[in-house]
């Protein structure tokens, strides 16, 4: 707090008063007015390119997701999925006990299977492409030239 004689002390002049008055008088535009007016809606970084237009999306919000909160949500989702897996495991165990047999398959986490399948897929692609290289080295893919060929244009600049 600046002292009474400080240079920095804000002066109670007219301009300041007017400014503060204007600031207080500005109200946020009501939701209905935004939807009915034809003015462009202020865009935010969220839901960009989601394919939905601003008008059609019902659950579109006008505030951005902070990095910190995004991380937090992601972390919580991970815990939630882990909890869900535990309950699934328990249910399976319970079922196994009741039926007295052990050959009940547990559905694995979908994420790991997709990762595994992409690895398998990459292996298939790699092997297939190596076959192309080997065939070329063996001379299977030699280009054959037949016919008179093609001539375009003519003898002029």
């Amino acid at each position, binding site marked *: 707090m600046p002292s009474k004689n400080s240079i920095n002390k804000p002066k109670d002049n007219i301009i300041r008063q007017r400014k503060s008055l204007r600031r207080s008088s500005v109200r946020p535009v009501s939701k209905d007015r935004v939807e009915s007016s034809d003015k462009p809606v202020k865009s935010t970084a969220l839901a960009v390119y989601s394919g939905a237009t601003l008008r059609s999306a019902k659950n579109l919000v006008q505030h951005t997701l902070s990095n910190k909160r995004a991380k937090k949500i992601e972390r919580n989702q991970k815990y939630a999925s882990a909890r869900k897996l535990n309950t699934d495991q328990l249910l399976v165990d319970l079922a196994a006990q009741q039926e007295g047999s052990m050959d009940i398959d547990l559905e694995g986490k979908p994420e790991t299977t997709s990762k595994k399948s992409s690895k398998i897929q990459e292996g298939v692609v790699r092997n*297939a492409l190596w076959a192309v*290289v080997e065939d070329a080295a063996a001379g299977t*893919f030699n280009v054959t030239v037949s016919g008179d060929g093609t001539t375009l244009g003519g003898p002029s600049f």
Partner: protein
Amino acid sequence: MELAVSQRDTNILLREKNVLNPTVLDKYRLAGQVSQTCLTYLTSLINDSYHLGKHAPYSAAELCLLGDSYMKSALKNVYKNQVKEKGIAQPVTIDVNDVVVGYAPELDEESNITFKAGDIVTINLGCHVDGYTSNLAHTLVIYPPGVQSEDGSLKPTGPLLGTPADAVCAAHIASETVLALLGASLTPEKLPKSLNAGNSVTGSLIRSVVDSIAESFNCTVVPTSKVRRIRRFLAGQAEGVVAEREFKGVVWSEADQELRLLRQSSKFDEKDNQQIVTFDKAKNASVSSVSAIPSDEFVVSPGEVYMIDIKMAPSQTVDGPGLITLQAVDNITGKNHSNETFNPKPSVFVRDVAISHQLKLKTSRKLLTAIDRDLSVYPFKLSHVSSSFPMNLKKDISEQLKDIHKDMITARLGLSELTNRHLVITKPIQRARFLPLPIVLNTATSTGVKGFDAENPVLPGLELPLPRLGLTSLKLKTLLKSSKSVPVARELSTVVLNNGSNELIRLSGGSKTAKPSWVHSEFQLAGQYTQGISELIQLTQDARFGIKIKECQPMNIEFSSDATISGETEMQLD
């Protein structure tokens, strides 16, 4: 960052303004005419100086500046006070041999080149009137100086042979065939039965026809080749910078070459691996809107305007199978003291209108104001901002050149802040490289699939060059040191599918301005579409019952052969 535009404005800008009516067609035709005339002008300059010996050889920088000056002054007096924006839509670029796009040296450029006999030179340019754009590209062959023929005129000694000739043939035939296909979409009943196309021209038909032509000439379609629909102010000038909704077109990328190699393999069964063949582009896209991601599942419909941009590179037979990919070159990366290396400074820029920033330097603020006031959303060069541009060839040329140079020194200073703040994006100069397949296969793909190359933006959905192998663009960039350069031929023309008169209007290219140079390839058309392609070409030549094609003719201007930067004679501009 998405630009928010109201529904009503979207309707006007994207729908109503793109309906082909006489006014719109006139604007398209005028843009086509100016671009055609500019190509004729540049071709005559090259012929006069390199083939006919009437003038000392022009350098690439001189040709670029003369072409730009011509386009700017030709559009100066048309639609005066009637349209807000008109001008250059693509500064003249002169791409030699393996350079694919973007080489438009300024006059002070160190790497400024003149051509050698046997070079293939691609001229790429474009202009627009009120956003209605006509782009073109054409590949010329530089011959040794002409020899005297019997009738006294100078003639080339012989056709160009070898792999560059294959590429020129493939690019020419492919672009003419696609043009005929687009024309046939106006009267689908005339589509040859042998194409098995049914009753419509689809993206996948265009792709398979072009691929078969490339294969019969032992060529590969170079990534970034495309046949796409263009609209007012949306002529693909900021691809990768701005994601375009409702993108309609066929785009070739490294992923297609990967699939072609897979299909060649004896160990690959397509039926078992449907998942690998139909790769979901949206999975790795940096934007999630499906419509911004190019897909072949579209039907060409009348009333649209298309750009046919075909680039062909010869496949190497000596080095075995491999991929054709692109390498961005600039004046910093990989520079050494050898005179052999090609380190040009990128000189074409495009404004990213979605970004705003309070600039610090006075010069950069001044430059940004000039760009936003005088130039449009289209690419530009720094010399276009100068007050001495376009050059008045009736006045002292050397003085004007000095002025342009002086303006550029201050503008360069401002430009660095603009590019650093991403207000202006540098258009890369790209070279075609052949990468042997074993080198790709020996590379581990451990970096994950998110290693996008932010410096070289691509269309959404094509961020991952080799999606089936999981090889990222950053990884591919590191492999380029063991790649070889390959020549590229390019043909680009813009066509309007006029649904009013059921005819195709060819805005740029064609037999008068972009006739193919004398080349001979040892290959000829082969494959399942041979019959269909020859029938299509016959249809385009049949004026009565075939596909109706009208070409935009260049203006009748006598270009003085001495219209030069160092000469004192005048060039007639308009």
